[in-house]
């Protein structure tokens, strides 16, 4: 445990670099502003009796006025936040291979699993910080947009609204941790930041969406769909508990495979 804590603290020396820290937080805030504004701007006027979505799949104004409206946009932005998490995690670990710095690290911490655990925790905490920034931004913009659209926010500030907001925040944190696991796994698998990031983005954005749209029930088994479902508290195609269990199994599988690869492979770069 001491070794992992040292690896975690060591990782944060890199993570606190201004360009990375402020660049990531800036990107997250920009994503969140865009998605929250679009969510409110495109909200329909139908009642939310049949569910949150109105014509064309957009949320209804009525739904946004409910207790879950304050963090609705946050839940919707999880895929893009997840892409950021995959990119950060893949870049942080894979560049250790391409820079050749992994060999320095392994001389100082030869226990590879301890090193990997510490680095994973470091990146996961960094990304979690990004989710906090995203949540604050989303809530702030939601209040601003609610004013412009004439949406009542009284439900948002109720005890139920607060609980709903915290639940969404926790779910998004969970989902983003899953995306971080995917990023770390891709980094270990490909040992190249460019390939890891390219594969991650290509899979999570077009490929998975096409598969989910083309193959019935496939969303119940695709990692990105499962993680999105966690963030949204469950969707019409994937229940919340199924999403939790499925994501946990997939992440454990990726963690196990990634740890095995990291442990067994020769470091020749």
């Amino acid at each position, binding site marked *: 445990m*001491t*070794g992992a804590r*040292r*690896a975690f*603290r*060591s990782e944060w*020396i*890199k993570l606190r*670099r201004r*360009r990375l820290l402020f660049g990531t937080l800036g990107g997250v805030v920009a994503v969140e502003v865009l998605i929250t504004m679009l969510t409110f701007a495109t909200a329909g006027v139908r009642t939310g009796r049949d569910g949150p979505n109105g014509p064309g799949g957009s949320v209804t104004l009525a739904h946004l006025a409910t207790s879950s409206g304050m963090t609705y946009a946050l839940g919707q932005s999880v895929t893009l936040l997840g892409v950021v998490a995959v990119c950060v995690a893949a870049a942080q670990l894979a560049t250790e291979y391409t*820079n*050749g*710095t992994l*060999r*320095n*690290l*392994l*001389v*100082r*911490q*030869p*226990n590879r699993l301890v*090193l990997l655990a510490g680095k994973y925790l470091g990146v996961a905490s960094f990304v979690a910080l990004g989710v906090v920034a995203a949540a604050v931004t989303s809530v702030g913009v939601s209040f601003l947009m609610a004013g412009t659209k004439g949406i009542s926010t009284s439900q948002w500030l109720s005890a139920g609204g607060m609980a709903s907001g915290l639940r969404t925040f926790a779910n998004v944190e969970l989902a983003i941790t899953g995306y971080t696991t995917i990023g770390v796994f891709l980094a270990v698998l490909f040992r190249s930041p460019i390939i890891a990031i390219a594969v991650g983005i290509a899979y999570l954005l077009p490929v998975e969406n096409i598969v989910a749209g083309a193959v019935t029930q496939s969303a119940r088994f695709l990692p990105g769909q499962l993680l999105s479902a966690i963030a949204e508290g469950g969707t019409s195609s994937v229940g919340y508990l199924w999403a939790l269990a499925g994501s946990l199994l997939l992440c454990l599988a990726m963690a196990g495979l990634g740890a095995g690869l990291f442990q*067994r492979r*020769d*470091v*020749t770069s």
Partner: protein
Amino acid sequence: MAPGSQGAEDGTSPFCARGTLGPQCHDGPPPGQCPAGSKVTDAPAITTEALTKRYGERTVVDELTFSVPASVISGFIGPNGAGKSTTIRMLLGLVRPTSGAGHVLGKPLDAPEHSLERVGALIEAPAFYPTLSARDNLQVLARLGGLAPDLDALLDRVGLLGRSADPVRAYSLGMKQRLGIAAALISDPMLLILDEPTNGLDPEGIAETRELLRSLAEEGRTILVSSHLLAEIEQICEHLVVIRAGRLLFEGDVSDLVHSASPQLRVRPEHPADLAALAEVIRPVVPDVRFDAAGLLVDGDEAVAGRVNRMAMSAGITLVELHSITATLEEAFFELTEPTDAHGASAPRDLAAGLTA
């Protein structure tokens, strides 16, 4: 029991076993600070036993067995592709041996978390985070190892204190090399493994690095240096390990290798016009006669020198120079490592076999 592992099973360090304070206490305390009651032995700092690494059908390191004595500077040399870097990576737990065994500071290679605590390494090109400062780069390693080094002193020792806040991307190759040495020293190591430590350094930097390595060795540290600069190796190393095609060619004192090289004689007649005639006269004794700017170069020892002298006198040629030339390490190295057959097979020469026996 494997060399160097003595005492490991009864809980005592194989390197602290003689009851004296001394630099060879490898296990735990800093150099020269063996606790009372601990002991010192002459156990080698590194041993390998039939260490082998294969990638598919290709054998990169082939049953390599050697040892590196403690508290001296050892050179690790061989032609490109000889397997030096792979061997070093196996010693550092970065590459898993296909077969064979080895010990670093008395700890087996398959337990690098124990063997590397007091090891510092610079492996091939220095690798750092380009956007971090030199100080932060060192801090990454210090935190990871749970170390609290005096970074100012460390940076000062390698001449980078004044530039320690600059991002490493602004460093020259020589500065990165110095930083690499600082990184290797961060754990106050008893064993330093340096792969091409003078690569990219200017002559002044090379000289400074040479002095740094000497001073580190004087502190009782063991240093294994891999380098292509054989003149540097000859100057700073006492002990040498030479490999080619993954196999051991020579292990022993540098002076042994140099003196084992074929002796040569320089012969110069009084009149340069006599050079060709002299070459013909002595050819029955020394068939391989080479011309150089100062006269003739021939293979041979003192006995041959006497015969050459007598033959020249008989032919009426006066010699103004007849002396033996001491081979350099480079000459000895080339003699040792040149392929011995048309296929470039890597079988060790008789010379090497005799010296390593």
